[in-house]
Protein backbone atom coordinates (compact mmCIF):
# COMPACT_ATOMS: atom_id res chain seq x y z
CA UNK A 1 0.00 0.00 0.00
CA UNK A 2 1.39 3.35 -0.98
CA UNK A 3 1.98 6.02 1.57
CA UNK A 4 -0.68 8.21 0.01
CA UNK A 5 -3.35 5.54 0.34
CA UNK A 6 -2.19 4.92 3.89
CA UNK A 7 -2.46 8.62 4.66
CA UNK A 8 -5.93 8.80 3.13
CA UNK A 9 -7.10 5.98 5.37
CA UNK A 10 -5.59 7.63 8.44
CA UNK A 11 -7.33 10.90 7.57
CA UNK A 12 -10.59 9.05 7.07
CA UNK A 13 -10.38 7.75 10.64
CA UNK A 14 -9.12 10.96 12.15
CA UNK A 15 -5.63 9.64 12.85
CA UNK A 16 -3.79 11.50 10.14
CA UNK A 17 -0.83 13.72 10.80
CA UNK A 18 -1.90 17.35 11.20
CA UNK A 19 0.69 18.59 8.72
CA UNK A 20 -0.65 16.37 5.96
CA UNK A 21 -3.02 18.28 3.75
CA UNK A 22 -5.97 16.13 2.71
CA UNK A 23 -6.84 18.47 -0.15
CA UNK A 24 -3.46 17.92 -1.70
CA UNK A 25 -3.92 14.17 -1.48
CA UNK A 26 -7.39 14.35 -3.01
CA UNK A 27 -6.19 16.42 -5.91
CA UNK A 28 -5.29 13.15 -7.63
CA UNK A 29 -8.39 11.57 -9.23
CA UNK A 30 -7.47 8.01 -8.28
CA UNK A 31 -7.01 8.90 -4.64
CA UNK A 32 -10.17 10.96 -4.63
CA UNK A 33 -12.16 8.06 -6.02
CA UNK A 34 -10.74 5.69 -3.44
CA UNK A 35 -11.38 8.13 -0.62
CA UNK A 36 -15.00 8.48 -1.75
CA UNK A 37 -15.53 4.73 -1.88
CA UNK A 38 -13.93 4.10 1.49
CA UNK A 39 -15.79 6.93 3.21
CA UNK A 40 -19.15 5.66 1.93
CA UNK A 41 -18.51 2.21 3.36
CA UNK A 42 -17.20 3.70 6.57
CA UNK A 43 -20.37 5.75 6.91
CA UNK A 44 -22.50 2.61 6.67
CA UNK A 45 -20.39 0.99 9.36
CA UNK A 46 -20.61 4.08 11.57
CA UNK A 47 -24.42 4.09 11.58
CA UNK A 48 -24.60 0.38 12.25
CA UNK A 49 -26.46 -0.36 15.45
CA UNK A 50 -24.28 -1.35 18.40
CA UNK A 51 -24.88 -4.78 19.85
CA UNK A 52 -25.17 -5.51 23.54
CA UNK A 53 -24.98 -8.79 25.44
CA UNK A 54 -28.09 -10.29 27.00
CA UNK A 55 -29.25 -8.82 30.29
CA UNK A 56 -28.90 -12.18 32.04
CA UNK A 57 -25.23 -12.28 31.12
CA UNK A 58 -24.67 -8.83 32.58
CA UNK A 59 -26.48 -9.86 35.78
CA UNK A 60 -24.32 -12.95 36.18
CA UNK A 61 -21.14 -10.94 35.71
CA UNK A 62 -22.25 -8.32 38.22
CA UNK A 63 -23.15 -11.02 40.74
CA UNK A 64 -19.67 -12.49 40.31
CA UNK A 65 -18.06 -9.10 40.78
CA UNK A 66 -20.14 -8.56 43.94
CA UNK A 67 -19.04 -11.90 45.38
CA UNK A 68 -15.42 -11.23 44.54
CA UNK A 69 -15.57 -7.79 46.10
CA UNK A 70 -17.05 -9.24 49.29
CA UNK A 71 -14.39 -11.95 49.49
CA UNK A 72 -11.70 -9.38 48.86
CA UNK A 73 -13.05 -7.32 51.72
CA UNK A 74 -12.87 -10.30 54.08
CA UNK A 75 -9.35 -11.14 52.93
CA UNK A 76 -8.30 -7.59 53.48
CA UNK A 77 -9.59 -7.59 57.04
CA UNK A 78 -7.80 -10.86 57.82
CA UNK A 79 -4.57 -9.68 56.31
CA UNK A 80 -4.53 -6.56 58.40
CA UNK A 81 -4.26 -7.97 61.94
CA UNK A 82 -1.66 -5.50 63.25
CA UNK A 83 -3.68 -2.64 61.88
CA UNK A 84 -6.76 -3.95 63.68
CA UNK A 85 -4.94 -4.14 67.00
CA UNK A 86 -3.75 -0.63 66.55
CA UNK A 87 -7.30 0.48 65.88
CA UNK A 88 -8.52 -1.32 69.00
CA UNK A 89 -5.84 0.32 71.12
CA UNK A 90 -6.81 3.66 69.66
CA UNK A 91 -10.44 2.99 70.47
CA UNK A 92 -9.55 2.29 74.10
CA UNK A 93 -7.22 5.23 74.52
CA UNK A 94 -9.46 7.77 72.92
CA UNK A 95 -12.22 7.79 75.59
CA UNK A 96 -9.64 7.79 78.41
CA UNK A 97 -7.80 10.72 76.92
CA UNK A 98 -11.08 12.49 76.31
CA UNK A 99 -12.12 12.08 79.94
CA UNK A 100 -8.74 13.29 81.15
CA UNK A 101 -9.03 16.33 78.95
CA UNK A 102 -12.51 17.04 80.30
CA UNK A 103 -11.26 16.81 83.90
CA UNK A 104 -8.34 19.13 83.22
CA UNK A 105 -10.58 21.65 81.52
CA UNK A 106 -13.13 21.47 84.36
CA UNK A 107 -10.49 22.05 87.00
CA UNK A 108 -9.14 24.95 85.03
CA UNK A 109 -12.57 26.55 84.62
CA UNK A 110 -13.30 26.05 88.34
CA UNK A 111 -10.02 27.62 89.32
CA UNK A 112 -10.62 30.63 87.10
CA UNK A 113 -14.21 31.03 88.39
CA UNK A 114 -13.03 30.83 91.98
CA UNK A 115 -10.35 33.39 91.34
CA UNK A 116 -12.81 35.81 89.73
CA UNK A 117 -15.29 35.51 92.62
CA UNK A 118 -12.81 36.75 95.28
CA UNK A 119 -13.71 40.30 96.46
CA UNK A 120 -11.55 43.19 95.45
CA UNK A 121 -9.76 44.75 98.43
CA UNK A 122 -11.30 48.03 99.61
CA UNK A 123 -8.83 50.76 99.19
CA UNK A 124 -9.34 53.15 102.00
CA UNK A 125 -7.08 55.32 103.96
CA UNK A 126 -7.93 53.41 107.07
CA UNK A 127 -6.52 50.24 105.50
CA UNK A 128 -3.56 51.87 103.86
CA UNK A 129 -1.25 50.13 106.23
CA UNK A 130 -2.86 46.82 105.29
CA UNK A 131 -2.48 47.17 101.55
CA UNK A 132 -0.51 44.30 100.14
CA UNK A 133 1.01 43.83 96.75
CA UNK A 134 -1.54 42.59 94.15
CA UNK A 135 0.35 39.42 93.40
CA UNK A 136 0.10 38.36 97.03
CA UNK A 137 -3.68 38.68 97.04
CA UNK A 138 -4.10 35.57 95.01
CA UNK A 139 -1.32 33.62 96.48
CA UNK A 140 -2.02 30.79 98.82
CA UNK A 141 0.62 30.65 101.45
CA UNK A 142 1.01 27.30 103.14
CA UNK A 143 2.21 27.24 106.68
CA UNK A 144 5.84 26.58 106.17
CA UNK A 145 5.37 23.16 104.57
CA UNK A 146 7.39 24.01 101.55
CA UNK A 147 9.73 26.23 103.45
CA UNK A 148 8.51 29.34 101.68
CA UNK A 149 8.82 32.40 103.79
CA UNK A 150 6.64 35.46 103.21
CA UNK A 151 5.31 38.31 105.30
CA UNK A 152 2.16 36.50 106.25
CA UNK A 153 3.39 32.99 106.05
CA UNK A 154 2.72 32.27 109.69
CA UNK A 155 -0.95 31.50 109.26
CA UNK A 156 -2.71 29.12 106.86
CA UNK A 157 -5.23 31.75 105.88
CA UNK A 158 -4.85 33.86 102.83
CA UNK A 159 -2.69 36.86 103.37
CA UNK A 160 -5.58 39.33 102.99
CA UNK A 161 -8.13 37.31 104.93
CA UNK A 162 -7.07 37.95 108.50
CA UNK A 163 -10.50 39.41 109.44
CA UNK A 164 -8.99 42.28 111.43
CA UNK A 165 -10.65 45.03 109.41
CA UNK A 166 -14.23 44.09 110.33
CA UNK A 167 -13.68 44.22 114.11
CA UNK A 168 -11.82 47.46 113.70
CA UNK A 169 -14.70 48.97 111.79
CA UNK A 170 -17.18 47.74 114.38
CA UNK A 171 -15.13 49.25 117.18
CA UNK A 172 -14.98 52.59 115.44
CA UNK A 173 -18.78 52.70 114.96
CA UNK A 174 -19.32 51.76 118.60
CA UNK A 175 -16.99 54.45 119.81
CA UNK A 176 -18.78 57.13 117.80
CA UNK A 177 -22.29 56.26 118.93
CA UNK A 178 -22.34 57.57 122.55
CA UNK A 179 -20.83 60.95 121.63
CA UNK A 180 -23.96 62.04 119.79
CA UNK A 181 -27.32 62.54 121.49
CA UNK A 182 -29.03 62.05 118.20
CA UNK A 183 -30.31 58.81 117.17
CA UNK A 184 -31.86 57.54 114.02
CA UNK A 185 -35.59 58.01 114.13
CA UNK A 186 -35.58 61.12 116.44
CA UNK A 187 -37.54 64.18 115.41
CA UNK A 188 -35.65 67.02 113.79
CA UNK A 189 -34.19 69.79 116.03
CA UNK A 190 -33.04 73.33 115.22
CA UNK A 191 -29.33 73.71 115.15
CA UNK A 192 -29.42 76.12 118.16
CA UNK A 193 -30.89 73.43 120.35
CA UNK A 194 -27.99 71.19 119.80
CA UNK A 195 -25.67 71.01 122.81
CA UNK A 196 -22.77 73.45 122.51
CA UNK A 197 -20.92 72.79 125.78
CA UNK A 198 -18.48 70.66 124.04
CA UNK A 199 -16.70 72.82 121.53
CA UNK A 200 -15.63 69.76 119.69
CA UNK A 201 -19.09 68.40 119.19
CA UNK A 202 -22.36 69.97 118.05
CA UNK A 203 -22.87 72.99 115.83
CA UNK A 204 -22.40 76.73 116.43
CA UNK A 205 -24.29 79.55 114.80
CA UNK A 206 -22.46 81.41 112.12
CA UNK A 207 -22.61 84.69 114.02
CA UNK A 208 -21.08 83.46 117.27
CA UNK A 209 -17.44 84.39 117.82
CA UNK A 210 -16.65 81.99 120.53
Amino acid sequence: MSNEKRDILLHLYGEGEPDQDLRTLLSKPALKSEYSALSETKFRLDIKKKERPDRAVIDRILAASRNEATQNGKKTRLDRGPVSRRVQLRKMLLPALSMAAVVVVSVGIGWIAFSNSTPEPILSSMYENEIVPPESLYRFVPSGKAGISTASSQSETLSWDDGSSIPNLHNRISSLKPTSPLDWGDSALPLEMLPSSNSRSGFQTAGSNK
Partner: protein
Amino acid sequence: MHPSDEDLVVRYVEHGDESAFRTLLDRHQERVFGYLLGMVRDREVANDLFQETFLKVISALSKKRGSYTVQGKFLGWVLRIARNAALDHLRARKKWRDVESVGDSEEVDYWSRIPDEAPSAEEEIHQIEMADLLQAGIAALPEEQREVLLLRHESEMTFREIADLTGCSINTALGRMRYALINLRRHLTSQQRKDLSEVVVAHE
Protein backbone atom coordinates in the same frame (compact mmCIF):
# COMPACT_ATOMS: atom_id res chain seq x y z
CA MET B 1 -16.19 14.60 34.87
CA HIS B 2 -16.10 10.87 34.23
CA PRO B 3 -13.60 8.82 36.20
CA SER B 4 -10.96 7.09 34.12
CA ASP B 5 -10.87 3.34 33.67
CA GLU B 6 -7.84 3.23 35.94
CA ASP B 7 -9.65 5.13 38.69
CA LEU B 8 -12.56 2.70 38.49
CA VAL B 9 -10.24 -0.29 38.59
CA VAL B 10 -8.56 1.09 41.71
CA ARG B 11 -11.93 1.73 43.36
CA TYR B 12 -13.02 -1.83 42.64
CA VAL B 13 -9.77 -3.57 43.53
CA GLU B 14 -8.72 -1.48 46.52
CA HIS B 15 -12.09 -0.59 48.02
CA GLY B 16 -14.39 -3.33 46.75
CA ASP B 17 -16.57 -0.70 45.09
CA GLU B 18 -18.95 -2.80 43.03
CA SER B 19 -20.48 0.23 41.36
CA ALA B 20 -17.07 1.03 39.86
CA PHE B 21 -16.99 -2.34 38.16
CA ARG B 22 -20.56 -1.86 36.97
CA THR B 23 -19.52 1.44 35.38
CA LEU B 24 -16.61 -0.26 33.63
CA LEU B 25 -18.91 -2.95 32.32
CA ASP B 26 -21.49 -0.44 31.10
CA ARG B 27 -18.81 1.65 29.47
CA HIS B 28 -17.19 -1.16 27.46
CA GLN B 29 -19.82 -3.84 26.96
CA GLU B 30 -20.72 -2.76 23.42
CA ARG B 31 -17.09 -2.55 22.36
CA VAL B 32 -16.28 -6.01 23.64
CA PHE B 33 -19.51 -7.72 22.67
CA GLY B 34 -19.56 -6.16 19.19
CA TYR B 35 -16.09 -7.51 18.58
CA LEU B 36 -16.95 -10.98 19.86
CA LEU B 37 -20.21 -11.17 17.91
CA GLY B 38 -18.47 -10.12 14.73
CA MET B 39 -15.76 -12.69 15.26
CA VAL B 40 -17.87 -15.75 16.08
CA ARG B 41 -21.08 -14.70 14.24
CA ASP B 42 -23.27 -16.43 16.76
CA ARG B 43 -25.11 -14.48 19.43
CA GLU B 44 -25.25 -17.29 21.96
CA VAL B 45 -21.59 -18.05 21.59
CA ALA B 46 -20.79 -14.34 21.80
CA ASN B 47 -22.75 -14.11 25.05
CA ASP B 48 -20.83 -17.05 26.48
CA LEU B 49 -17.49 -15.61 25.44
CA PHE B 50 -18.44 -12.19 26.80
CA GLN B 51 -19.29 -13.71 30.17
CA GLU B 52 -16.12 -15.80 30.14
CA THR B 53 -14.08 -12.70 29.34
CA PHE B 54 -15.41 -10.60 32.19
CA LEU B 55 -15.27 -13.44 34.69
CA LYS B 56 -11.58 -13.72 33.83
CA VAL B 57 -11.28 -9.96 34.25
CA ILE B 58 -12.83 -10.17 37.73
CA SER B 59 -10.62 -13.07 38.70
CA ALA B 60 -7.49 -11.35 37.42
CA LEU B 61 -8.32 -8.08 39.18
CA SER B 62 -8.98 -9.85 42.48
CA LYS B 63 -5.48 -11.34 42.39
CA LYS B 64 -3.84 -7.97 42.91
CA ARG B 65 -4.84 -6.95 39.38
CA GLY B 66 -3.44 -10.09 37.79
CA SER B 67 -2.07 -9.29 34.36
CA TYR B 68 -3.51 -5.77 34.34
CA THR B 69 -0.42 -3.69 34.83
CA VAL B 70 -0.48 -1.20 31.99
CA GLN B 71 -1.88 2.12 33.12
CA GLY B 72 -4.76 3.50 31.10
CA LYS B 73 -5.13 0.46 28.83
CA PHE B 74 -8.00 -1.31 30.49
CA LEU B 75 -10.02 -1.79 27.30
CA GLY B 76 -6.99 -3.10 25.44
CA TRP B 77 -6.37 -5.58 28.23
CA VAL B 78 -10.00 -6.73 28.25
CA LEU B 79 -10.01 -7.06 24.47
CA ARG B 80 -6.87 -9.16 24.64
CA ILE B 81 -8.68 -11.55 26.97
CA ALA B 82 -11.74 -11.49 24.71
CA ARG B 83 -9.62 -12.09 21.62
CA ASN B 84 -7.92 -15.10 23.20
CA ALA B 85 -11.31 -16.49 24.13
CA ALA B 86 -12.63 -15.94 20.60
CA LEU B 87 -9.57 -17.46 18.94
CA ASP B 88 -9.71 -20.47 21.25
CA HIS B 89 -13.35 -20.95 20.28
CA LEU B 90 -12.68 -20.57 16.57
CA ARG B 91 -9.68 -22.89 16.69
CA ALA B 92 -11.71 -25.46 18.55
CA ARG B 93 -14.28 -25.31 15.79
CA LYS B 94 -11.55 -25.28 13.19
CA LYS B 95 -12.82 -22.06 11.77
CA TRP B 96 -9.75 -19.99 12.27
CA ARG B 97 -7.35 -20.04 9.42
CA ASP B 98 -3.91 -18.65 9.96
CA VAL B 99 -3.68 -16.60 6.85
CA GLU B 100 -0.19 -15.50 6.04
CA SER B 101 0.49 -11.86 6.46
CA VAL B 102 0.23 -10.11 3.14
CA GLY B 103 1.92 -6.88 4.10
CA ASP B 104 1.27 -4.02 1.77
CA SER B 105 0.99 -6.03 -1.38
CA GLU B 106 -1.93 -5.04 -3.54
CA GLU B 107 -1.41 -7.88 -5.93
CA VAL B 108 -3.30 -10.33 -3.79
CA ASP B 109 -6.95 -10.82 -4.57
CA TYR B 110 -8.49 -10.47 -1.13
CA TRP B 111 -11.97 -11.12 -2.46
CA SER B 112 -10.88 -14.66 -3.23
CA ARG B 113 -10.03 -15.18 0.43
CA ILE B 114 -13.58 -14.69 1.57
CA PRO B 115 -14.65 -18.09 2.86
CA ASP B 116 -17.29 -19.91 0.92
CA GLU B 117 -19.07 -20.89 4.09
CA ALA B 118 -20.08 -17.29 4.80
CA PRO B 119 -23.81 -16.97 5.51
CA SER B 120 -24.65 -15.20 2.30
CA ALA B 121 -27.41 -17.39 0.94
CA GLU B 122 -29.60 -15.73 -1.70
CA GLU B 123 -32.80 -16.30 0.21
CA GLU B 124 -31.46 -14.57 3.26
CA ILE B 125 -30.14 -11.60 1.31
CA HIS B 126 -33.47 -11.06 -0.39
CA GLN B 127 -35.16 -10.51 2.95
CA ILE B 128 -32.66 -8.66 5.02
CA GLU B 129 -32.35 -4.93 5.22
CA MET B 130 -29.22 -2.92 4.71
CA ALA B 131 -28.05 -3.46 8.29
CA ASP B 132 -28.24 -7.18 7.94
CA LEU B 133 -26.61 -6.94 4.53
CA LEU B 134 -23.77 -5.10 6.11
CA GLN B 135 -23.50 -7.68 8.84
CA ALA B 136 -23.35 -10.41 6.26
CA GLY B 137 -20.68 -8.55 4.38
CA ILE B 138 -18.58 -8.25 7.52
CA ALA B 139 -19.04 -11.91 8.23
CA ALA B 140 -17.90 -12.75 4.69
CA LEU B 141 -14.60 -10.95 5.11
CA PRO B 142 -11.38 -12.87 5.69
CA GLU B 143 -10.80 -13.28 9.40
CA GLU B 144 -7.84 -10.96 9.65
CA GLN B 145 -9.58 -8.17 7.76
CA ARG B 146 -12.73 -8.71 9.76
CA GLU B 147 -10.86 -8.56 13.02
CA VAL B 148 -9.20 -5.24 12.20
CA LEU B 149 -12.52 -3.81 11.01
CA LEU B 150 -14.27 -4.97 14.20
CA LEU B 151 -11.55 -3.64 16.47
CA ARG B 152 -11.70 -0.27 14.72
CA HIS B 153 -15.47 0.10 14.41
CA GLU B 154 -16.87 -1.92 17.32
CA SER B 155 -14.10 -1.54 19.87
CA GLU B 156 -13.06 1.94 18.73
CA MET B 157 -9.36 1.21 18.97
CA THR B 158 -6.75 3.18 17.09
CA PHE B 159 -4.71 1.50 14.38
CA ARG B 160 -1.69 1.64 16.65
CA GLU B 161 -3.59 -0.17 19.40
CA ILE B 162 -4.90 -2.71 16.89
CA ALA B 163 -1.37 -3.35 15.70
CA ASP B 164 -0.22 -3.88 19.30
CA LEU B 165 -3.11 -6.20 20.09
CA THR B 166 -2.85 -8.34 17.00
CA GLY B 167 0.92 -8.37 16.91
CA CYS B 168 1.40 -6.84 13.49
CA SER B 169 2.79 -3.60 12.15
CA ILE B 170 0.62 -0.54 11.82
CA ASN B 171 1.03 -0.68 8.04
CA THR B 172 -0.29 -4.22 8.02
CA ALA B 173 -3.24 -3.17 10.17
CA LEU B 174 -3.97 -0.29 7.82
CA GLY B 175 -3.67 -2.54 4.76
CA ARG B 176 -6.13 -5.02 6.25
CA MET B 177 -8.51 -2.23 7.05
CA ARG B 178 -8.36 -0.82 3.54
CA TYR B 179 -9.07 -4.16 1.95
CA ALA B 180 -11.83 -4.83 4.43
CA LEU B 181 -13.58 -1.64 3.35
CA ILE B 182 -13.03 -2.34 -0.34
CA ASN B 183 -14.29 -5.90 -0.07
CA LEU B 184 -17.25 -4.86 2.01
CA ARG B 185 -18.19 -2.28 -0.59
CA ARG B 186 -17.97 -4.87 -3.34
CA HIS B 187 -20.11 -7.21 -1.35
CA LEU B 188 -22.81 -4.62 -0.76
CA THR B 189 -22.81 -3.47 -4.35
CA SER B 190 -23.03 -6.98 -5.76
CA GLN B 191 -25.86 -7.92 -3.48
CA GLN B 192 -27.80 -4.78 -4.32
CA ARG B 193 -27.33 -5.45 -8.02
CA LYS B 194 -28.51 -8.97 -7.54
CA ASP B 195 -31.58 -7.78 -5.69
CA LEU B 196 -32.31 -5.24 -8.40
CA SER B 197 -31.95 -7.78 -11.19
CA GLU B 198 -34.25 -10.20 -9.43
CA VAL B 199 -36.84 -7.48 -8.99
CA VAL B 200 -36.63 -6.72 -12.72
CA VAL B 201 -36.99 -10.40 -13.59
CA ALA B 202 -40.01 -10.69 -11.32
CA HIS B 203 -41.71 -7.76 -13.06
CA GLU B 204 -41.04 -9.25 -16.46
